[in-house]
Structures are given as structure tokens and as C-alpha cells.
């Protein structure tokens, strides 16, 4: 999966699940302070990412370190690589 696909699909999650417009979805955006997500949204973000990318990340400790959209892009890319092995 190329990086552009990951960015597009993560953006789709933020648009579909959290109704955040495209122009706010930049890699440096903090998902809490800039995009307004809270603790309940994080649960839904994990559910939506699992569905969108067909991955299992709910109990992955690395999820807790995610702060920006860019962190999500990198995390998904990493997970996808790990799953290929």
C-alpha cells in the first residue's frame, strides 16, 4: 500500500466518522487539539481504522502514542508492513 493511499483512506475515516472537512486534514494536525477528538472518538477511530484497513490494532500499545494525523499514517504503514511478514 503506497503512502498516498493510506493518507486518502485515513482522511476518509476522519471525514466519514468525524465529519471533519478535507482542508483540516494535514499530517501535522493534532487529532485532539486541532481536530477536536476526545476519548470516545478515539475508541471509534480505532474501530473505523480496523475496518478501513482490515487490521487489528485495538490492543496495540502504540495506539496510545498517536497524536497527529501523520502519526496515524506512519502507524498504519508500519502495521501493514508487519502484517506482510
Amino acid at each position, binding site marked *: 500500500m503506497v503512502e498516498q493511499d493510506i493518507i486518502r483512506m485515513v482522511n476518509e475515516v476522519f471525514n466519514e466518522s468525524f465529519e471533519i472537512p478535507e482542508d483540516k486534514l494535514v499530517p501535522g494536525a493534532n487529532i485532539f487539539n486541532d481536530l477536536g477528538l476526545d476519548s*470516545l472518538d478515539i475508541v*471509534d477511530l480505532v*474501530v473505523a481504522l480496523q*475496518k478501513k484497513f482490515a487490521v*487489528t490494532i*485495538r490492543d496495540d500499545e502504540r495506539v496510545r502514542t498517536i497524536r497527529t494525523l501523520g502519526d496515524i499514517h506512519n502507524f498504519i504503514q508500519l502495521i501493514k508492513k508487519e502484517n506482510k511478514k
Partner: protein
Amino acid sequence: MRRVAITGLGAITPLGNSVDAFISGLERGENATQYMPEWEKYTGLRCLVGAPARMQDEKLIPRQNRRSMGRLSIFAVQAAEQAVKDAGILPAELSSGRLGCVIGSTMGSAESINEAFETILPDHDLSKLTSTKFFQCISHTAALNVGQYLGITGTVMSTNAACASALQAIGTGYDIIRLGGQDMMLCGGAEGLHPTVVGSFDVLFAASSTFNQDPKNTPRPFDARRDGLVCAEGSGIVVLEDYERAQKRKAKIYAEIIGYNSFGNGNHVSESNREAIIACVNETLTRAAVAPGEVDYINAHATATIQGDKEEAAAIRQIFGDTVPVSSLKGNIGHTLGASGSLELIASLMMMEKGVIYPTLNLQEPDKDCRGIKHVMEPLKKEIRIFLKNCFAFGGINAALICKKT
């Protein structure tokens, strides 16, 4: 005890999403029943008619509020906003601790409950469930969502007594204000239309099933050709207020609540019972200090089931004889279940204001078991000083409320 006034109204109904649209539909004698083609996929569901409300402007509710709302809670929030505006309640009053809300529904959002099961059951996997689905499914979903959305810091509670939910909510709010616990209460009920709910009536042969190709002719309360109820949806919210407070601030007072009661029948979960209805209504009359002859109008529960209408008619006949006008609005809007008590109360308040009684739509030939009471079959001009509102629910729960013009 303090007196209690009704000072605000809000309605989302199958006839439109405001009190004005609702009343205009009633005035025009409209019936909101529709054939529901999307229900055809349910094997064993004979009733394929319903009376849906129109979901609109829901995106005006911020996402972080809306995410915990199923269909019925969105209706409740929209009706509550209308009622707050109508009563002229200030934002600071909502969060004063002196204003509360009691809002009931038959259950949590049926649509959301269905979605939750569809998510979990195929793989028995709970990890796919979103964080707020629970808040849509929970039994007090309407009350919690209205409370959160409006920032209510007073009493927030729910009454879940199926078709008596809204009237119990209003009765509870009435008692809380009478006792001095709160100064204002947003009260009422909400319901979402879903085939699984229709099915619960259909399995008991209580839902209309012979008018699927002729939906405008059902439901038929008290009529000889009635064949069951038509499920509907929406929300009705009223603002209750300490009477003196309302007078002091020169609020519009639609009516004063002067009596309320809810009794169980103690003998059957689904069959109405005339003796129990009589006991409930008589106690309400006693509490209101009103004689049967002083009642100008009875807004009946009458859902168009064979058994329920017969028992209600018998109870009315015994208490009131054939002199007090009676009508049911189910012929117009179907049975809005947990919202019916408040929506039909709102319509009765508007009849009081306009001096007209809206008839029972589709009542063409009163059934022999439903005769001996004064059926209103055409619009009737009449001054209403006192009216009675009935609601009867599965579980053998009856409720009645009496309002007086001020």
C-alpha cells in the same frame, strides 16, 4: 402543593416537524400512514404500514452531541428545542439546577439496538462496536441526550412504560414541581419507527395487516373494521412550570395540570381491562376534584386494536355515559407509542385554544362494542375548559391526566 402550568410545546410528528404543522395536518384531516416497502424483507411481518416522521436538520446538532443519539433522541432534542423556545426559557435557566427533564420512550433506539446486534452477532465480535452505540440503545437515551444537549443540571430521568411513557413523564414532572423539587421541567416522550417494534405488536395480532394496499384507511380507532394499530414515530415535549412563576414572568399558559394518576391492572401483560381503566380514571378525577360531567373532552388512547378500544369505550361509557365528546388521534398519526401521550396532549391543548375538537379519522361505523359514548366523527366546535388524556400501555400500565383552561 404548588400549582403547575404548561408553558411551552414542541413536536416532531408524522404530520410535520412543528406544533403548527402537526395541528394543520389534523385540521386538514390528514392520515400519515404509508406502505413501507423496505419492511418486505422481514419474513413473518404481516403489517407493512407505518407512519414515519421526517428526519431533517439533524446535522444542526453538533456531532459530539449527535453521536450518542439514535433516531428517537434526535426527535426528542428537536422537540425539546422547540418547547424551550416557545416557553422563552433562557440559557442560564437550563443550567440553574432548578430546571429538569423527564422524557420517556418504549425502549432505547430500536434502530440502534438492531445495528448493535447486526454488528456483534455475525462473528460474536464486540470490538467492532462504536463507543456511543450504548448511549443510543440505553433506555433513558432521550432524557440523557436532551439533558446533555441543553446543558440541564437539574433532575434528569426517564419513564419507560411503553405507550404510557410520555404521560408518566409529564405526571412525574408535575409531581416534582408540585413538591417544590424543580421550578420548570421539560417532559414528554419520543419514539423511533422500526420493523422490529412493529413485529412485537404483529406477533400478538395487534398490528394492522389488512390495509397494506390501502394505507390511508388505517388505523381505524373504535371502528367496526379496525384491524390493529399502525406504529409511528416522533417526539412531543412540553414545558411544565410552577404556576406562580409562569404568571410572574407573564409566560403564555396553555393550561394548568390539575390531576394525574397511573395505576397497574395487575392481571395481564397485554390485555386491557375496563375495571383497571375505570379505577385509574376515577382516581385521576378525584385527585383533580373534577366530576365526570365537568369534563368537556376526552382524548382517548384508542389505538384501533380490537380488544383495547372495546375496553376503553366500556370504561368511558361507565364513567361518562354518552355526553362527553371522545376522539382518538391515532387515525391521523398512528400510534407514536412512547411519544403518544405528549403529542396527543399537545394536540388537545391546541384544541382547547382553538375551541374545536378534531375527530377520530377513519371512524365511519362505531363497532357495536364501542358504542354508547359520544364519538366525534366530524370537527366539533366546542369550548374545552377541562379535558382528560388517557394512555394505556403493555404491561397493564394505565395513566390519565387532566388539564384545565386558565
